């Protein structure tokens, strides 16, 4: 059987492949962390998290040069050895599996609460997972094309945030920088999960031929999302205050629901935001599913087989079923939110720990290899 190869992504497709999941993943609830940990200037957690994420991008770019055309699943065993490499790969994939589950659970929870109260949860679950599987089946370029087409939805999100400043008061975002530095660092570190989808760069870098653009594009994504989230968080705090926003499960949705244009076409603009975000969530889930299935399929393949299409498609369906089952087993959102901190810490340790471990090991091996060559 002839193995079809994935098409290489153009820079614009690559950009959107990273932008959509990063801007969507925690959009609805991320201010809760900064508000609870820091307080009225909780929005400063975002610039701190931005700074903390840059090393991750640098490491991913380094490995894209070191092992061109290979994903993290392929080069981890080369760097760390077979057994440790397998363990690290499984942990890495587990992080993204949890990310997918959290994103889907939120999307389904939102649809269930606001739009479809009586439809059985199981149905909405199957619908969303099935729909995401459908597109990820067709490969990375179709997935990226869909993400690229959703630029208007992202612009719409930005517009809604801008309009929500209608009720903003500067006094609600004060005092500024009156807390000890440690609080801001802690808040930023705990808010890092906002940028976890950027960790897909470790896999996505193998699908683009323009290696020189990898770092600049991913940094642009990080900068855009950080800027957007910073303004967003500032807006929410200015309208609700930090104390006020902690009452909501989805503060961003409530923020947009405060928009009041009494004589406009739609009464509740916030629910339209929900629809726009839902579309982005669907696309993000598609991207996550693709990389998960692809990563799982590569666990047993030799390096260099990254481009095989058929292998990941078989895993996709099984992955979908496992995702549905996992989501069904989560009793309610409170269960997830209560464990969000734990997830953030463990995932952060895995992602950052793994990348630094890879970097150090790779550099050490190169140093010793050079030493041997010189001898």
């Amino acid at each position, binding site marked *: 059987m002839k193995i079809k190869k994935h098409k290489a992504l153009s820079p614009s497709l690559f950009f959107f492949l990273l932008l959509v999941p990063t801007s969507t993943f925690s959009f609805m609830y991320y201010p809760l962390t900064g508000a609870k940990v820091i307080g009225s200037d909780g929005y400063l957690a975002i610039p701190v998290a931005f700074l903390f994420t840059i090393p991750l991008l640098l490491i991913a770019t380094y490995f894209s040069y070191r092992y061109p055309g290979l994903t993290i699943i392929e080069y981890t065993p080369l760097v760390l050895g077979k057994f440790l490499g397998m363990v690290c790969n499984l942990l890495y994939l587990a992080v993204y599996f949890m990310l997918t589950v959290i994103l889907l659970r939120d999307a389904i929870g939102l649809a269930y609460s606001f739009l479809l109260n009586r439809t059985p949860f199981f149905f909405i679950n199957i619908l969303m997972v099935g729909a995401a599987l459908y597109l990820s089946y067709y490969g990375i370029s179709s997935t990226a094309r869909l993400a690229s087409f959703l630029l208007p939805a992202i612009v719409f999100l930005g517009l809604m945030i801008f309009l929500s400043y209608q009720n903003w008061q500067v006094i609600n975002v004060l005092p500024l920088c009156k807390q000890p530095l440690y609080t801001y660092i802690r808040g930023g570190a705990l808010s890092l999960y906002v940028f976890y989808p950027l960790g897909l760069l470790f896999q996505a870098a193998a699908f683009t031929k323009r290696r020189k653009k990898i770092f600049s594009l991913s940094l642009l994504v990080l900068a855009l999302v950080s800027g957007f989230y910073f303004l967003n968080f500032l807006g929410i705090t200015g309208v609700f205050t930090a104390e006020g926003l902690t009452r909501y499960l989805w503060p961003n949705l409530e923020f947009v*629901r405060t928009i009041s244009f009494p004589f406009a076409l739609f009464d509740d603009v916030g629910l339209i935001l929900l629809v726009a975000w839902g579309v982005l969530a669907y696309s993000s889930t598609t991207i996550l599913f693709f990389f998960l299935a692809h990563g799982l399929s590569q666990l047993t393949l030799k390096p260099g087989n990254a481009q095989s299409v058929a292998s990941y498609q078989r895993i996709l369906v099984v992955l979908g079923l496992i995702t549905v089952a996992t989501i069904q087993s989560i009793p309610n959102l409170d269960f997830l939110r209560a464990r969000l901190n734990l997830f953030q810490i463990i995932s952060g340790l895995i992602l950052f720990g793994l990348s630094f471990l890879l970097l150090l090991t790779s550099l050490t091996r190169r140093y010793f290899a050079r030493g041997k060559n010189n001898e």
Partner: protein
Amino acid sequence: MNKGLSLIKALLIWSLLLPVLSGCWDVVDIEKRELLTGLALDLTENSRVLLTAQIPVPRLILPSSEDPSSDQNFYTLSVQGATTLEAFNKFKSKTSGQIDTIKTNILIIGEKIAARGVKPYLDTIGRMPKFPVNSHLLLSRGEPGSLLQKEVASKTLPTFYLRDFLNLMNKRETVHPVKLWNFFYKLDNSAIDPFLPVLYYDSGEKIFILAGLAAFSGDKLAVFLTPEESKIYGILSSEQAEITLFTQWQKARFICVRYINSRVVYEWSPPQTIMIHLTAAGYLMEETGATLPLIPDHISKMEKALARQIKEDAEKLIRRLQAANSDLIGLGRVVRANHEGKWTEEYWRKLYPTLQIEVKVDFNLTRTGRLN
């Protein structure tokens, strides 16, 4: 393997039929929905929650309604329960259609509930996902349920009448609209207290009147403000625009100033002094001694008189609010903005009544007409 994949593909495609074969759980025809456009919360004598809802009859509201004999284009329902949620669930058994709060524009709270503390009663409503966050809250000094049964002279649906009244910008002088999300924001915020506009009904002219404010301390009703005091509050908070004031500037001579807008700057001098710098501007509309020509010197006297009056009224209002421990203006936010360390509500509740608050007013008459 290929056959297996084809089988799975086929199963997936056939499974798409499932939604078609299943029921449409959320499908309810629009004419079968009973919209609660207005809701009133009150307490009965034995402290049970009394909910009253106003439900429009759509076919009687249509412009081409063929039933002119019917006077009322709405009806009301009342239910009781130990809690708000228990009472609310009883609506289902009283109507044939599906109860919907998706268009509840008006929520009236009774004085009894406000005096007890609104949080336990309002919390359920705040947690209903489909309850509109931009619905207007009002307070009634009598029985709020009875207000929902009143008709208006213009034959509009009463809740529509109130909603339009509250949404229109040019009503801002007399009306300080409070939306549900705004009320919760202040309830959750330890540095500012909420208020509610007070609703009355004039049975002679068959109209609703919004006059004065009910100031809260935390979630309990603290004090009622008169309409004049609520104007001063509007100037102090600089949230309201286009206020009209009437003041004496010379013996037996009065002026009327309209479209007063203000800007407020707070100056906090720890430990206990706040200086409120108020800069207001307005148009001179009327001068009772109009037979005498106005000169620039008169204008500065008028401005000083206005500044003096606003200062006196503002300080009087602030003292009244301090006595009731109701931080309507949100001075707590000013103190918190400059506060080092952990902010607690307890700390603020103790500090607020003891604050020295001074108001400095600068008034500018921007339109005076021709002067000599």
